[in-house]
């Protein structure tokens, strides 16, 4: 099937593929970002601040990053207000003070559940995409 430039007769919609892909990416990211950030902080041995986390994510992604670094911060804030993370602000030698995040006990429990949810979702989607399910 050709998504772009297929001939459009009566009543069909012209599909704007890039916009749709962006939308899909955005919708997927909104859940994944929480899981990824929680997981990063779950593995961290020390409290981490935003730039450190963004850097770590960048180093780990092979292609272009999934989301802008700026989009990570509101997710960190929201995880904190849900009680999964906690943070404290510390002055830095150079530049503005940094907000250091650590995972809470509730955060660790949630991370375990979320990891399970992720594994289930992943294998489900992979099965469907491969067509190995009983269709």
């Amino acid at each position, binding site marked *: 099937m050709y998504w772009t430039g297929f001939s459009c007769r009566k*009543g069909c919609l012209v599909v704007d593929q890039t916009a749709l892909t962006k939308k899909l990416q955005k919708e997927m990211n909104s859940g994944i970002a929480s899981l990824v950030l929680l997981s990063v902080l779950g593995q961290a041995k020390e409290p981490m601040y935003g730039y450190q986390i963004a850097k770590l994510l960048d180093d780990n992604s092979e292609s272009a990053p999934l989301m802008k670094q700026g*989009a990570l*911060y*509101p997710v960190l804030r*929201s995880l904190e207000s849900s009680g999964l993370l906690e943070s404290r602000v510390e002055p830095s030698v150079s530049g*503005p003070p*940094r907000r250091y995040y650590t995972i809470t006990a509730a955060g660790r429990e949630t991370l375990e559940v979320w990891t399970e949810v992720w594994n289930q979702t992943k294998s489900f989607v992979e099965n469907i995409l491969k067509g190995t399910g009983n269709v």
Partner: protein
Amino acid sequence: MYKTVEDYLADLKQELAGSDQATIQDALSDAEEHLRMAVASLREDKPDLAEETALQTAIDQYGSPAETAAAYAEVERRTAPGLSSGVNRKSRSFLGRFFGVYADPRAWGAILYMLIALVTGILYFTWAVTGLLFSVSFSIFIFGLPFALLFLLSVRGLALLEGRIVEALLGVRMPRRPLFGHPGMKWFERLKLLVTDKNSWLAILYMLLQMPLGTLYFSLLTTLFVFSLSLIATPVIQVVLKIPTVTIGYTGYFLPLWALVLIALGGILVATLTMHLARGIGWLHGRYAKAMLVTE
């Protein structure tokens, strides 16, 4: 594009206008922390890098002010429902809830809407009736059809405008741009959709109904408020101006003090009830406007 972090922050603040104050604070401090760190670290790796270039690279990775603002707005939207934020309902007593209506922006928004509805209602009604009549009478001419289409288009435009008013004053999310059609659609398809879409016709109905509704809202509100104000003013009139409260025939009767206090309290009660009524009507009207004006 941006010479300093401050320039970026100023733009970000502008993009966030209208968001929760706390969100704006968070977004600005996060961006400042990140960008300063990023610039410092980029220049540590390459000492001969110009500060401006380093900032540009950092912003490219961080996201434009618009993108960043959108990310915060998205998270805010998912976590906290708009107008109800900041008010802790559970911990308040009945009296607190009853009189708390004076601190509720939704009640004041609804009152403003009910006052405005008289004016907009008359305008919408006039526009809709004139447009319909001219469309019908012009239909015998060759330019009748374009005129009718133009009228329908104007109705959609007014519906969008009304949506903005409803969203601002009644707190119901309404579309921000015309929803009919899709990018790349032919103009003929658009026109066909304009005529076949039931919301074009519902919008005309809405505009016609808005005049009686607006008149009702306006008179209800003014009557009730004037009534409550006159009750509250009764003690002042009798005690300060020495005018009897009740006059039967040629005889004026002065009421005892306790009755005056009761009447004034009654006035406050009526005013508060009117606020509640306005909030309720605002809520109902918001749902109704959404049903009539928004294309699913």
